[in-house]
């Protein structure tokens, strides 16, 4: 979740776009499954900044998963407080 976005960016840079999208997708999936909301927030920030750097728009399904993960954060935090 932390390192995969860097590898995805690297793949994108060398023109391996399919591999890059798969790697980002894997990172996003791991982030959404993470039981710790703090780790999810960190993962989301790092994944988004890597998309920003690479100038890539996530695929629709992945963008939805990112949005869902972010949307459930308040509830997830409320459960651990």
């Amino acid at each position: 979740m932390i390192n995969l976005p860097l590898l995805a960016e690297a793949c994108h840079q060398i023109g391996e776009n399919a591999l890059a999208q798969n790697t980002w997708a894997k990172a996003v999936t791991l982030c959404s499954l993470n039981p710790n909301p703090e780790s999810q927030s960190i993962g989301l920030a790092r994944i988004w900044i890597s998309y920003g750097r690479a100038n890539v728009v996530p695929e629709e399904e992945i963008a939805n998963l990112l949005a869902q993960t972010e949307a459930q954060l308040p509830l997830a935090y409320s459960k651990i407080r």
Partner: protein
Amino acid sequence: MNSLIRLFSICLGFASMASGQAVQKVIDPLAHNQRAIENALRCLRTISGDSYRIALTENWISLNLAEIGYVDASLKVLRESAPHYLLVYGCADSALASLPYADHEDSCSLIELGTELLPYTQGRGGEGVQLQLLKLASVLEEPTSIKKLLDAKRITSIDMTESLAEFLQDYKPSMLNRFLDSIMPSRQWEIAPKNQNHEVFLQWTKIRNADLYTARLLMKVAESRIWHQSPFPKYWVNYALTGVRIDSIGAYPELVLLGIAELSLQEKNIKHTIDLINETGKRIQRWPPQFESVYLVERNMAELIAKLPNNEALRKESRDRLVKRIEQLNQGIDPYGQ
């Protein structure tokens, strides 16, 4: 939407402040997905919990923003964060990353913020980052920051005057030192102590890391000179090359190598750039997946490869390595990266 416009205006404002055509190329607003950057900044503010992890992430976001030209936004991230000793490192790293193309005032603001936060490093070995800030302030010729950082010996209990003088000898060496360096290039780089206790080894590591930071800084200053179409002394490159080929620990030497490669590319010395990238690739080949710096080096290396013409061989090698790294990560070192 407002913040999107703001980010865009930061970008354009920054580009207009900078001088030289080459500067504007780096700050191309179309080269980055601004919506994604905006999302990253929003998600950053949702983190709640361990202050150490929060500060690490803030440093990471700030560094990335600085690297892609959003120096103002990078400073804003650090300024709006809850004070933490790690943020001082963030200020130093972001200032270093943005040095080639940042506005003088923005770089100085990062150093000033780092200096303001320096008291939080008390009792945590803050002298290393204090020296980094001091070196940055020296190359930016900021007497006020230099004075404040030298006065900070009350915080770290270490007088930096001698360390600063040593750095200035690397930055602007005297004729005698230049002559001595030319006949004995490695005279300033002590080899790792053998059969010594841990304390001696730690002391050597600190000195080595400080010198490698100098090498990174000199490469950034040289890059800045190229952007602004002014010459830089070649002995900076010799200093950095000598440093990376002598014993050290951590990923600093590889980052310095990539810094030299970037510089070489900007000088249009393609062959030397390829040699340096190959050397970096060989060095990181056996790094284990648990060594997290490997991913940063891979990413930075791929960015350089992408800028090279006729780079098929390098791309293929890089691809093979990346596929292997992704497989290793998928096999799960820590699937949630917690």
